[in-house]
């Protein structure tokens, strides 16, 4: 190659080409570049020899270490299962009462239950299980379908108004929209229901509406919510006397509930979570207490 002039700063000569004022020095490739090119290439070749690497016609080079990522993951899953077996097997085989009586097991339930709950349930029920509009507060002990661990586990497994064939089914009639009650009757029964759990009950001006509402309640609501309005857990009908509301306790919201009815949904988790996971969750939820 015909070389150009010498660069005064580096002492190197240029290649003799010039593009709009840009020149190039004829500096040899630094040794360090060649060194690392060799090192990385040798590493790559070594890795190819050791590991599955190159495709052949209908198979591939397996590598002398005999590593297979599917075998590895299968082994790791088995190992993890083995590691958890001592307590997981107990949870699987023991009944709820026996597990609850075992402090060591309950400690593990608390640990595993929290992440299971937050990863699967918290999206609707909240991280602290305190619920939100449309989603029941699970720490309130105000159960729709029963609060014993086996009842909770069943609810988790089959869901509520879900696509599971055994699903729990519950629907509140749309008393207003379906023409069962007129607007005055609904207003009265709303006043009565709200008075059951406190707000507004001291106002004497509301007394006539509350009294009228009590009659409406007796004629229309007791079949599901019970004579005492404490709900029926075999029908998923909520207790109306406690201070917890699923959809909210404001006048408007309770009116909407009576007028348009309600039908909440909970997915069924039986096909997504293992039996042990569901058991852990049931115990975890049962043990929840209201956050102060």
């Amino acid at each position: 190659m015909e070389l150009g002039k010498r660069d005064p700063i580096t002492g190197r000569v240029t290649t003799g080409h010039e593009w709009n004022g840009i020149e190039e020095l004829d500096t040899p490739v630094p040794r360090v570049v060649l060194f690392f090119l060799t090192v990385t290439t040798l590493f790559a070749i070594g890795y190819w020899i050791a590991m599955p690497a190159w495709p052949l016609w209908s198979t591939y080079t397996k590598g002398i270490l005999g590593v297979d990522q599917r075998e590895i993951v299968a082994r790791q899953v088995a190992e993890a299962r083995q590691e958890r077996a001592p307590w997981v097997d107990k949870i699987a085989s023991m009944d709820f009462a026996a597990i609850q009586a075992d402090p060591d097991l309950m400690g593990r339930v608390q640990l595993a239950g929290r992440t299971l709950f937050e990863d699967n349930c918290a999206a609707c029920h909240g991280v602290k299980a305190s619920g939100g509009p449309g989603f029941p507060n699970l720490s309130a002990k105000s159960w729709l379908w029963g609060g014993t661990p086996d009842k909770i586990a069943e609810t988790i497994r089959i869901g509520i108004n879900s696509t599971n064939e055994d699903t729990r089914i519950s629907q509140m009639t749309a008393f207003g929209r379906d023409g069962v009650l007129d607007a005055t009757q609904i207003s009265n029964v709303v006043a009565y229901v709200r008075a059951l759990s406190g707000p507004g009950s001291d106002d004497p001006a509301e007394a006539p509406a509350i009294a009228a509402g009590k009659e409406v309640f007796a004629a229309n609501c007791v079949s599901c919510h019970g004579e005492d309005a404490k709900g029926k857990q075999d029908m998923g009908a909520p207790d109306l006397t406690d201070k917890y509301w699923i959809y909210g306790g404001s006048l408007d919201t309770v009116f909407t509930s009576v007028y348009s009815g309600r039908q909440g949904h909970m997915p069924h988790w039986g096909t997504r979570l293992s039996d042990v996971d569901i058991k852990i969750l049931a115990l975890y939820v049962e043990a929840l207490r209201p956050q102060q």
Partner: protein
Amino acid sequence: MIARLTVAERQSALLILIVMSFLGLAMAAAGRGTPFGLHGFLVIAASIGVGLPLLRKFYAPEPDPAQFEQYYDDPTKVGIVLAMLWAIAGMFVGVWVAALLAWPDLTIDAAWASFGRLRPIHTSGVIFGFGGNALIATSFHVLQRTSRARLPDQLSPWFVLLGYNLFCVVAATGYMMGVTQSKEYAEPEWYADIWLVIVWVVYFLIYIRTLARRKEPHIYVANWYYMAFILVVAILHIVNNLAVPVSFGDFKSYSAFSGVQDAMTQWWYGHNAVAFFLTAGFLGMLYYYLPKRAGRPIFSYRLSIISFWGITFMYMWAGSHHLHYTALPQWVQTLGMTFSIVLLVPSWASAGNALATLNGAWHKVRDDATLRFMMVAAVFYGISTFEGSFMAIRAVNSLSHYTDWTVGHVHAGALGWVAMITFGSIYALVPWMWKRETMYSARLIEVHFWLALAGTVVYVFAMWNSGIIQGLMWRTYTDSGTLAYSFIDSLVAMHPYYIARAFGGLLFLLGAIVGTYNVLMTIRVAKRERAQSGGGTDVPSYGRDPVLQAGE
């Protein structure tokens, strides 16, 4: 600018616009009331938008033949401005989505404003809108100077530039309407993809036709990289977007690939988009504007050769490192990982070649923010290629994959390398293009530099921390062998870093706004100066008087 087109070129342009209008009309009719139909109207509007000013100057006399003795820089000038505007738009949406991640409640109740639709507007806006326009604009400039040949004609560069921007607008508006292939960096649907192929082939032909007429015996390194960028992006784009439309009147299509083959094709595309769009193209920029600005010869021609062939050969294999520990056969993962490791050497050789070129000009780096942009870009290029090779190692990837570390890595490259080299190059190029000695304000370049650097550092450090914390939390187990943290625990841990990231991004956006202002003011001042001096200030800012030659 239109009067500078020849009469024949104006006629051809009108013909193209008429054909496009009819195509748009057909789209609008076939896809009545759907996004496809709306895009038809967009095509019509774009054709008319270009057609009206064309018609106004349509009967202007033939241009002065003397102009063919000079390089053709009008498309470059427009491309620079478009690049800066896309930078602001794309980075603004980036800050928006970053804010949504930190404060999700800030969203408005509209489908187009949902995170999933805004995010590709950000990525396409900055990569294709900002990066693509900058590449097209600078490549036309570099190509002519280093070939000592004028662009082969004046129409095809406009077709490439404006056609490409039409593609970008169709892409971004499509995302807002839910039009997407759901392939990262390849979201635009089939009709936009076909349009881009046409534009890209014309782009490639411009390059070939100009190089064929070059007056220099050798093809300069920058052109190797620009050529690799154009050629490989064409191949990637065509293969990854092979799809069957539901009908020719509907935007929806289904990929020709399925399952793990689809994943592998997508990441072969995705990683080589990083390699040939975001690396090769911008190395072309670096190889011209850095030595030019520094006034120094390239450190080593031989190193350039090793780097170029190393990068082009090795990157092609690396895509599978995006699919470690997946259904992809392990041997493919092995190849992706090992080639990614070897790839570090030519990458660092390129960064080193750039930095060693600055030997003898470090005092300029200290004083000149434009050159400092380019120097820092080379440093970030080195940092992010090291990080990339490191993250391609399977064991490292098991921690980093699916975390914010990946996001941090991408932005170390996109902000630190791609955007910095672009801003540096544009600051060098704008005074040359508009015949001024300097930019409007050197101080504003300095302000932009520090905003960009601070924004990048804040962003990247926030995402490193966030990503590593996230990865570690996901793989921490209790003594019982169950997960120690729920997913939402990791979200809570990430929150402060998300705020920091949004802040870093905001700094970078502010820098881009300052830069755009500076560019626009330079143009304005240059025009005013030319008007005052009667158009006589042809400042020869080049190293020597440009030796120009006639076009065809």
